[in-house]
């Protein structure tokens, strides 16, 4: 087995709410967006990060491309602590680790033409100017924008959402990175064009041998692009394993609910009541012990006292005291 390209150990990202003065007075509160997460990715692996809104998926992605500094644990990229990278190392990291943003309309500067948007990473990586044009054409071609020349001088508002999302993808891929975080890249797109973007994503990942993290709250989409899935809840990992296994036989009660809740385009689907009720608790004030316990149908006294550690069950890691095959 090759060395992991990404390795997280007990990674934490806590946001302080309140200003400097309130911090001085000890009045601020913390949101534990990512709270003690460990996993690693091998080269070429693509992982779906699944979970409810606010569970820390985006925060996790941002750590991996160094948009946030972690507050605890470690987060390594090819063995180097991401937060400690400096100078040319950082520069190198910047060209090897990329992010595809959720909202394509927001992710490109409205005043920049498509050409200028795509030139920015090339300029930063000090790539010789003579090759720029070709690389831009290649990148656009790669993301399936046929006849790239016609897009170069256009401005973002002159493109459709699907086209723009491909431009965003092209920008992430133009430096041929090794690792990509895609944060809900299709959630802002229309149903009929989603499939196209997803296909491009799959295709490019396979062709470039990318290591990828795909963030979504939609299990059906995750299943479409990732062979492995990590289920998060309130900043913690609940279950981590092959996507097909989780879809067909979720072990964690939360995963089970998640799978059961996804509607399918069939009239004869199950209408059974969900195993869990309620909504996610306030992240500033999570329950003690297992964060899921207050909604868990299987919760017992032990769950309130003891934080369940991830256990290996078959192909999977599950953080539940009672999970079993």
């Amino acid at each position, binding site marked *: 087995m090759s060395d992991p390209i990404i390795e997280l150990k007990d990674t934490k990202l806590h946001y302080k709410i309140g200003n400097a003065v309130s911090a001085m007075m000890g009045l601020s509160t913390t949101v534990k967006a990512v709270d003690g997460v460990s996993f690693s990715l091998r080269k070429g692996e693509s992982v779906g990060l699944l979970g*409810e*809104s606010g569970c820390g998926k985006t925060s996790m992605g941002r750590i991996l491309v160094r948009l946030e500094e972690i507050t605890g644990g470690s987060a390594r990229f090819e063995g180097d602590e991401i937060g400690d990278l400096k100078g040319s190392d950082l520069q190198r990291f910047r060209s090897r680790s990329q992010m595809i943003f959720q909202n394509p309309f927001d992710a490109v500067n409205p005043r920049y033409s498509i050409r200028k948007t795509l030139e920015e990473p090339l300029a930063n990586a000090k790539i010789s100017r003579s090759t720029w044009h070709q690389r831009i054409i290649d990148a656009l071609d790669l993301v399936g924008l046929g006849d790239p020349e016609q897009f170069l001088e256009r401005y973002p508002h002159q493109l*459709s959402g*699907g086209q723009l999302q491909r431009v965003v993808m092209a920008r992430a891929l133009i430096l041929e990175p090794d690792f990509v975080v895609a944060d809900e890249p299709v959630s802002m797109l*229309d*149903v*009929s*064009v*989603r*499939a*196209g973007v*997803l*296909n491009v994503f799959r295709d490019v990942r396979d062709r470039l041998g990318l290591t990828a993290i795909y963030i979504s*709250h*939609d*299990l*059906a*989409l995750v*299943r*479409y692009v990732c062979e492995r899935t990590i289920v998060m809840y309130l900043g913690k990992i609940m279950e981590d394993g092959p996507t097909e296994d989780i*879809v067909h036989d979720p072990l964690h009660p939360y995963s089970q*609910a*998640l*799978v*059961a*809740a*996804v*509607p*399918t*385009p*069939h*009239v004869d*689907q199950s*209408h059974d*009541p*969900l195993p*869990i*009720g309620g*909504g*996610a608790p306030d992240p500033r004030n999570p329950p003690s012990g297992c964060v899921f316990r207050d909604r868990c149908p299987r919760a017992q006294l032990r769950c309130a006292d003891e934080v369940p550690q991830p256990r290996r069950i078959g192909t999977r890691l599950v953080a539940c005291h009672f999970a079993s095959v």
Partner: protein
Amino acid sequence: MDAPLLSVKDVSIAYKVGALDIVAVSNARFDVPQGSIVGLVGESGCGKTTMARALTRVIADNARIKAGQMQFAGQDIVSLSEKDMNSLRWRDIAFIPQSAMNSLDPVYRVEYQIVEVLRDRGGLSKSAARKRAVELFEMVGIDPGRLRDFPHQFSGGMRQRAAIALALALEPKLVVADEPVTALDVIIQRQILDQLRSLQRELGLSVIMVTHDISVVAYICDRTVVMYAGKVVEDCDTATLLNEPLHPYTMGLKNAFPDLHSAGTGILTPIAGSPPDLANPPPGCRFAARCPFATDQCRVEEPMLTEDAPGHFVACHRAVEAAALREEAKQPGTWGTAA
């Protein structure tokens, strides 16, 4: 079968933007039977919200219902006087908006907003209205103790439930729900859908459910109306629609949707191209440009919405060949080449 509760006939609605007329809904025609849930699906911008809002006749300043009728319990909503329409609103037709956060007034407690409608529109006394508010909250599964919260203190799911409670306050005959679960997580989405469904059964309501998600339609709707670029292209019971669609757009939509429980991860197929400009729609079938089966006829002659089988309406020149086209549509290659 009873007469439908609502019968929309040849409704056209246009927005005026500068000198242009954007016909967001043209010649829409569908029925909502008594006590059923009707889904309204289609791509973004195809006119779903416009259609739904027209049923309350509270439409944008620049919008106008240009033609058609909307027969509701014997009255035509289009030609009703403003006064009569106003008395119809909420007592007979209630509305659940997509974003409940923005539809609740942030400066009033939720209770006030429910009581307001009960008193102003339902004629209840203050104390009776309060009692009813408690009932409503219990009905939608929120702790009545939270009635005195402000909207922002609610989570997304609670807000959506509060909006449902508000919609049910006056026991309307018809509830129009505009994408009530789109912004929510799957688990909450499922809870809300279940709730809506059971309330609908209990109260004998009719519901129009606007959505772009055919899984949601599959889960909850009795009948489904598919819209494309302002037109109704297909309208039938949901099972038929999903299993034996007649319109190529419906077939394409199905292909583009991931299915969690299908065996294996079959390739998803996008519908290439984009919808036409509504200010200047092309002649013929509006889907023709993206349709892999379009013929020359399709490009010049507009297909009419016809009842192909009992209760199954479709607007396609090639509807008779539908069975064959369905097979062809399952091949991914079919769609990649279009447009």
